[in-house]
């Protein structure tokens, strides 16, 4: 069976830099309860997770109690602070995805409480349900068959049927190869992992998720390159790999993440995709973003710039542990609400001021780190404009990486972005690696096979045939 895109993007959804701003998306998404994402208001998206604990039959009731406590705290605070609405994301864990009935029960606990707050206090909220990509649990993973896939799909179905508003995932097709590429800073393998493996897997997976969404009336959200470019981000923050590599990798994930929308997803894109602005520019979908107020989950060099064009603003993930004030999910709910209030107040004074706010958010970070620089709204539009010219996702991925290198080099020359001295040579290394990649996907695959560790993943799961002898 072939998994063909239902849409292609040949031109930018955002026509002008002046239309590229937070809170407003070309294709807003309206939820069942009337909330509109990308329709003018930036909403907080709160994500919470368990404190250190085991999940099994003996603890599952405590797991439920934890979620119940967290959702009550979050909604209570949102109500007290008069949030215009709130999105709650639950990223199910492997255990609660492999047992769909557990994941379902958690979603039920959350949704029931959210409905109660809507009825009692008029607090509108949406639930984003993000099952874990448990296909990874078996190594090398089966991507298109087997028990793991079935559990994951069953979790999506059950949760969507009960009313989960938005469906998302951080899919992992190609991750084994991309991990290897990252630690070696090998952009060739990264491009293959993203533009070939990632795209092919997402076409398969998103055809299924979109089908579930259509059947149940849920919204097919999006699929971040969390396991890819965010791993690069984390490694760069730890000083393990150059920041320029992480910046190039970020742009290179664009065609992969775009696949969800080509397959019929509508957004809001998921928070942890820092590539989100590219999705909004190209597909016009509303996006959730995370930055400084996700410092509970990861540090980053994009704390403010990430907010420039967001439609929802997220904390990525925080454990249910106690701070001096309150449980951490409550504290972060408060922080997000205030962040959103500020952006929305500026926008209330008119587009002119929303753009001012956007530019300050951008300027605050763009010059200090190449990862932030490639998220500058004008740069996003510049690169996106080139990317929509390419029909083929592999070619687009290669081009994205090359454009990122060029833009960063130009930025350095113009004094617009700082690159640490010992990172500079890496731009040249990456450049020369990209140049060696043939334009022919088949040829590239044939070439790469010799270098790959095929005990880690299964080419046939990506419709690839092993042709070369090792």
């Amino acid at each position, binding site marked *: 069976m072939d998994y063909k895109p239902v849409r292609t993007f040949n031109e930018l959804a955002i026509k002008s830099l002046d239309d590229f701003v937070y809170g407003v998306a070309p294709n807003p998404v309206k939820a069942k309860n009337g909330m509109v994402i990308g329709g003018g208001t930036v909403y907080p998206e709160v994500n919470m997770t368990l404190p250190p604990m085991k999940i099994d039959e003996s603890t599952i009731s405590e797991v439920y109690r934890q979620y119940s406590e967290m959702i009550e705290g979050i909604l209570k605070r949102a109500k007290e602070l008069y949030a215009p609405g709130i999105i709650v994301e639950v990223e199910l864990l492997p255990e609660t995805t492999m047992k769909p009935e557990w994941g379902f029960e958690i979603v039920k606990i959350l949704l029931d409480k959210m409905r109660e707050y809507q009825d009692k206090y008029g607090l509108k909220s949406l639930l984003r349900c993000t099952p874990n990509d448990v296909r990874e*649990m078996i*190594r090398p993973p089966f991507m298109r068959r087997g028990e793991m896939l079935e559990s994951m799909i069953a979790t999506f179905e059950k949760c969507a049927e009960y009313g989960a508003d938005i469906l998302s995932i951080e899919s992992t097709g190609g991750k084994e190869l991309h991990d290897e590429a990252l*630690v070696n800073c090998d952009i060739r393998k990264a491009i293959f992992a993203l533009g070939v493996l990632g795209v092919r897997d997402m076409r398969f997976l998103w055809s299924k998720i979109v089908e579930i969404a259509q059947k149940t009336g849920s919204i097919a959200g999006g699929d971040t390159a969390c396991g890819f470019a965010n791993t690069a981000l984390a490694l760069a923050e730890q000083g*393990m790999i*150059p920041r320029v590599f992480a910046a190039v990798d970020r742009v290179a994930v664009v065609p992969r993440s775009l696949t969800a929308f080509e397959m019929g997803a509508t957004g809001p894109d998921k928070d942890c995709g820092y590539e989100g602005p590219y999705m909004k520019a190209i597909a016009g979908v509303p996006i959730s973003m995370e930055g400084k107020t996700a410092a509970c989950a990861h540090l980053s060099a994009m704390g403010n710039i990430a907010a420039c064009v967001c439609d929802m603003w997220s904390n990525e993930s925080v454990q249910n542990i106690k701070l001096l004030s309150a449980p951490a999910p409550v504290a972060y709910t408060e922080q997000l609400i205030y962040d959103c209030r500020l952006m929305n107040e500026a926008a209330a004074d008119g587009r002119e001021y929303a753009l001012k706010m956007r530019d300050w958010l951008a300027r605050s970070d763009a010059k200090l780190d190449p990862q932030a620089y490639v998220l500058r709204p004008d740069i996003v539009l510049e690169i996106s404009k080139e990317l929509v010219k390419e029909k083929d996702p592999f070619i687009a991925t290669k081009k994205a990486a090359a454009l990122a290198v060029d833009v960063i080099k130009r930025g350095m020359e113009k004094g617009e972005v700082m690159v640490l001295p010992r990172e500079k040579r890496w731009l040249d290394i990456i450049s020369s690696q990209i140049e060696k990649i043939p334009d022919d996907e088949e040829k590239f695959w044939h070439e790469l096979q010799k270098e790959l560790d095929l005990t880690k993943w299964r080419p046939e799961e990506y419709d690839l045939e092993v042709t070369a002898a090792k």
Partner: protein
Amino acid sequence: MATLEELAQAVVDGDETQVVELTKSLLGSGVNPQDIINKGLMAGIEKVGELFQKNEMFVPEVLMSAEALKAGMELVLKETQQGVEVTSKGTVVMGTVEGDLHDIGKNLVCMMLESNGFKVYDLGVDVKPEKFVEAAKQYNADIVGMSALLTTTMVNMKSTIDALAAAGMRDKVKVIVGGAPITQKFADEIGADGYAPDAAGAVDLCRRLAG
């Protein structure tokens, strides 16, 4: 004439061609192979370890140095008749704990340990306690390393330590733990011998524990 310092520097630079050339030249001019190893090649990789520790080298750079080192070593071992000693720094059995799928942090530590002269057995992800115990026995490990990225799987580290104790192995190996949610306090609580916040720290820790 080539010097041992130049050879060490070539290892630091990760310049395999240069390492091979300099090693050849040094061997040709009659320098003691044990010195080539200790004062040239190994001195270089020690320096790499230090620089990585100080966040002044990137992982791919360390890996290139390790490749260069390997090429030099093979050459010395092949070209010389005398017995030369290359001692392993220790044997480490490493894995991500049961229920946890996160590879890359663990992989990084494995690579960095190997680059720094340890013998490493990578058990992969979702590793059950029994498997850690079995591997520790089989490979006569000095150190068992466990990684976890989830707050819901970090608790499984304790099970492995218990399993090592039950198998009478606890006093034969040092146990180290790491991963985003892990803290020194947690490591102490479960009775681990050490905790490292990152790959550089893990290398340092293993050096101290195996030393």
